[in-house]
């Protein structure tokens, strides 16, 4: 596919042209936390950190609170639509500018779960209207990570700082310009839009990009082989290693709320008086004891051990079983956000070692 480039100075023009047709989300930093925010005024420019944001972009397609419907005096109505300056009347099409490759991969993983038609071997069979509505026709501009963080381990999970899975266009920071490579049909078509501030990339640019990529890849630590992790976990359900792993866990949801692939939710009714209210879908987390608490008061996952096991099992066993891939993209956010500095890479290594010890004993 042909490659293009865009001057960094002209990014704003590109984003402006996007806002004509899309609701555009860009990474923005405020109070030391970077997250994706919708472009609502012309002043917005993306914060480009060359690594992933603190809060993942999953909240664009799967917001923490989703109103399913509202009711008033017996009448049910659909939720009010968001209202922004740039929103053209007939479109809810979303464009994300500046997602990192790991986050874009997480979209593909959640696509399998929420029932988007994509060419994958396994999907859940469930179709989630909310996800699909937002995700259909969404245009994803990925910016590769020139400077992956020391917490990044996407290379353990078949990812990398410049992988294209799920992207429509991949941008590579090559100094004054971004190299722009369309990597889907949508991307190809978008690049044909008239009046975009882009030009054909020269050979030098492409070469430059490949150097940048190699450099970025070399800064990632040596990947740990986790191909047999799923099978390993099959045998570890009762293993005391979970105690050891979960000792220090405080059972908060910092890891799961900031995880790009965690999707558990709860349905709640919110009332205002007797006649008015709404039904909402809110994020929930398997790290909370309330998550599995039953009406009788019994809790099948009473302590952090069971809950930690669930989280690891879900990501590295059940997800593989049900959806054909690991439910983790190696973004490292859980490592960065954990109040007690639990490191999922260490957890994986611990599990691997236990498995090795067991098989050696046999």
């Amino acid at each position, binding site marked *: 596919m042909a490659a293009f480039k865009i001057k960094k100075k002209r990014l704003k023009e590109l984003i402006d042209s996007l806002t004509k047709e899309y609701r555009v989300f860009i990474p923005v930093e405020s109070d*030391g*936390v970077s997250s994706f925010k919708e472009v609502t005024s012309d002043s917005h420019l993306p914060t480009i950190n060359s690594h992933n944001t603190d809060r993942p972009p999953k909240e664009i397609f799967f917001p923490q609170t989703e109103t399913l419907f509202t009711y008033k005096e017996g009448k049910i109505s659909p939720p009010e639509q968001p209202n922004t300056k740039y929103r053209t009347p007939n479109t809810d099409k979303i464009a994300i500018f500046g997602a990192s490759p790991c986050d874009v991969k997480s979209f593909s993983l959640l696509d399998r779960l929420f029932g988007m038609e994509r060419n994958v071997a396994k999907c859940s069979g469930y179709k989630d209207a909310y996800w699909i509505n937002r995700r259909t026709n969404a245009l994803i501009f990925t910016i590769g990570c020139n400077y992956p*963080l020391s*917490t990044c381990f996407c290379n353990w999970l078949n990812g990398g700082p410049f992988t294209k899975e799920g992207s429509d266009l991949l941008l590579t920071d090559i100094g004054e310009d971004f190299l722009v490579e369309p990597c889907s049909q949508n991307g190809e078509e978008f690049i044909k839009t008239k009046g975009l501030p882009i030009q054909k990339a020269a050979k030098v640019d492409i070469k430059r990009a490949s150097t940048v990529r190699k450099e970025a890849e070399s800064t990632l630590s040596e990947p740990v082989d986790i191909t047999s992790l799923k099978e390993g976990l099959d045998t570890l359900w009762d293993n005391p290693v979970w105690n050891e792993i979960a000792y*220090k866990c*405080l059972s*908060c949801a*910092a890891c799961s709320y900031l995880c790009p692939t965690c999707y558990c939710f709860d349905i709640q009714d919110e009332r205002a008086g007797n006649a008015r209210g709404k039904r909402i879908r809110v994020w929930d987390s398997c790290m909370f004891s309330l998550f599995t608490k039953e009406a009788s008061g019994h809790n099948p996952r009473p302590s952090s051990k069971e809950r930690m096991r669930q989280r690891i099992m879900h990501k590295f066993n059940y997800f593989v079983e049900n959806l054909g891939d690991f439910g983790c993209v190696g973004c490292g956010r859980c490592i960065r956000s954990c*109040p007690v*500095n639990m490191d999922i890479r260490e957890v994986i290594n611990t599990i691997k070692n236990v498995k090795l010890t067991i098989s050696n004993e046999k």
Partner: protein
Amino acid sequence: MMRSLENELKECARKLLTEKKVDLIIGYSKSPLPLRSTPCFIREEKDVDSLIFDLTCSNNLATYLQKSKCAEHRKPNTDPTVRMENRCKIGIIAKACDARSIVQLILEKQVKKEDITVIGIACTGILDLKKVSDRLNGKEILNYNPQDDEVLFEGKDFKKALKLSDILCDSCKTCLNPDPSVYDSFIGEPVSGAKTEKQEPMTELENLSFGERWEYFEHEISKCIRCYACRNACPLCYCEECVVDRTNPQWFGKSTEFSDTFTFHITRMLDTAGRCVGCGACIRACPTHVDLAPLGIKIEKEIKERFGYTAGLSLDATPPMATFNEDDKEEFIM
């Protein structure tokens, strides 16, 4: 200096384990990330060497004394028939604020004093990672090197020294009782009265108008994602069922709707009134940097003014909200 402190610490821990005075030591060990440490649980002498103590030991370990959080690791290591009581004796490394939390937990009958051996440690403050990150423009730090009153940070393409006083946690800078209030053994030299100037925790917000203060909190609290890291990191939030998790009646909505979120934070602050030791664990635990400090500081100031109490200083005290004085001020009551 730090090294010898660590050696002393390891010696002490080793002794406690060999003499079977404790079954378990709760301390800090290195985390794979620079600038971070992680809580560790040591049962055997051979693991003692992984103990560390430095500027990064930010967690309040008293949290792990709570029943709900340590059901598993409280189980005795030794054969229960050998031990007369089926209880685990715990040695815990305690900075001043951890020790204050332990005092509160003992006062509130959450742990038994005789089950705990407090290894008090001299602490001159710990790093506030947000301040460091802000001063380095969010660049990733790969290595750090503490010097006298500076810390040298290194990253991919930079080296920068920052003044220690600029990057310590606020709760450390305003810590009025920097030496552990209780301990069975003490590591290092007492630090109170030493070089640093301590100021009373204050919050500039008090000088603002009602509307301005509201706006401040509206901004702060809207950053909350309801992960409850603050609550779970708090050594004194030990309710078996938190009111925010109650379902019958359900007091709180579950979304990030502002009033629900704020009510949760206010309620938590009111519940810890007169008990909060100002360790700052909730603030450091927050992944979105919600500034909860003013709420806590304000309450503790009020408690001190009205009831003359500072939490966690004495094992003989009565928590102020569990008692009363007939002459308590009531200027606000009609």
